[in-house]
């Protein structure tokens, strides 16, 4: 967290700079099946974030040493397009994207029924086309819908969502200014039907009580996003194959 104390992020009327309430999410839209070449795909817009996910597989796992006898491995690449941020970022992976790829893959392996595909690999490609804080969560949501679009069975749809803290107040779904100048960020991956958590990161400063409130907001938002995900998949199947 940037943690610059001198930037005002809450208005005098108690609302946030963009007019949202403390526990209000940015608008989310989801479209499934947008990439003709992939086995499954989705585009998620979350505020101004644009995340696209493509799924390929299950396929034979190569090289052999990554194979698991009892289950599929999920190979995630989270990548930010060079033009997705205010300052251009050099193409290729960096330490941040490698870490996010690793923990996202582990979260997805926790919800996909990987036991059904021993020795296989499922490739999940997450591309961030525009970034406005919260890209890893938008990517998780997109990956879940793309996996469902590919017909890969899951215990539940994994929903990516974050809460945080600005000016000592817990708020849902930080936008860019709140992320840059806020005090904490708690991005999670939630299984709405089981109430379990498959993805968890956090940085900044949160008291135990603040953590509990932030997590409460996250569960509430996850339920909302889950509906939008289900809607997207329904539209996709009603619309038929592309």
């Amino acid at each position, binding site marked *: 967290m940037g943690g610059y104390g001198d930037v005002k992020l809450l208005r005098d009327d108690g609302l946030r700079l963009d007019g949202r309430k403390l526990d209000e999410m940015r608008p989310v839209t989801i479209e499934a099946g947008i*990439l003709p*070449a992939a086995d499954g795909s989705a585009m998620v817009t979350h505020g101004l974030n644009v995340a696209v996910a493509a799924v*390929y597989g299950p396929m034979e796992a190569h090289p052999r040493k990554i194979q698991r006898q009892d289950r599929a491995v999920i190979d995630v690449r989270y*990548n930010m397009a*060079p*033009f997705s941020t205010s300052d*251009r970022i050099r193409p290729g992976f960096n330490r941040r994207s490698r870490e996010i790829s690793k923990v996202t893959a582990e979260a997805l392996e926790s919800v996909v029924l990987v036991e059904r595909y021993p020795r296989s690999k499922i490739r999940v490609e997450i591309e961030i086309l525009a970034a406005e804080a919260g890209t890893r969560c938008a990517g998780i949501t997109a990956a879940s819908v793309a996996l469902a679009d590919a017909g890969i069975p899951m215990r539940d749809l994994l929903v990516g969502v974050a809460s945080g803290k600005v000016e000592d107040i817990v708020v849902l779904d930080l936008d860019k200014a709140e992320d840059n100048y806020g005090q904490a960020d708690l991005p999670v991956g939630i299984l709405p039907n089981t109430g379990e958590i498959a993805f968890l990161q956090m940085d900044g400063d949160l008291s135990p009580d603040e953590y509990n409130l932030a997590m409460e907001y996250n569960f509430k938002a996850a339920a909302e996003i889950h509906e939008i995900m289900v809607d997207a998949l329904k539209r996709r199947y009603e619309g038929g194959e592309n």
Partner: protein
Amino acid sequence: MVELVPTLLRQELARLADDDLRLDGRGRWDGRDVDLQIDCLYNAEGSAKVVMGKTIVYAGVKFEIRTPWPDRPSQGSLMCGAELRPVAHRKYEPGPPSPQSIELGRVVDRGIRESGCIDMESLCIVPGEKVWGVMIDIHVLSDGGNVFDACGLAAIAALRTAVVPAERFDVGEDYTLKVNGTPIMASFTRVGGRYVFDPSEEEELGGDERIHITLGDEGHLHSLQKGLRGVFTPAEFAEIFEVAHQRCSELRKLVATQEGN
């Protein structure tokens, strides 16, 4: 390597070619419908999305301020890069840029650069000290055949919408980048023994060498490239060169139409 499918596909494509037919019903010199959107990406200073059959490509333009080369103190720079990343097709593997990616980026780059549509002198801020570097990054999201033309179109369309972010860099007011012309690429692949325009994914899989032609507003050549295994005759080139002129004009009009919106 399962090479059975391409072999059967080659036979089918040859059979169709005997009757001057194509797999998807198009005529030999017909392109697929092209959907072009401009200014579609938050954070990019210029952007475009091209959908051409099953091919989907985004391009985004970013600017940076840099020190000019000592021997060209009043010239900025232009750079265009493309990557065929694993998102775009099952066949692309992760890793450093492949020769295919490098070729794609460099062919698109040469077409735009050599057309002279960007006056490098116009990118100067303070001679010898500060010039603009313009970077066009092309992101192929779905490779459904003929990514070269889709990338070339997305790149020039994005560039033509670009706004120089002078305010953010504290060097004056934002202004629209001046772009003199609309270089357009037309690509041909040998399928079933003869060239066709705008090959589909299947035609590329069962086809041979390809030729990429970039033409400027006046119909001059700015870039040529032959890729893959195969040879061609001057007569064959003359034929596709003619077609390229027509197709490039049509796509240039499409760019103008979108900009008029």
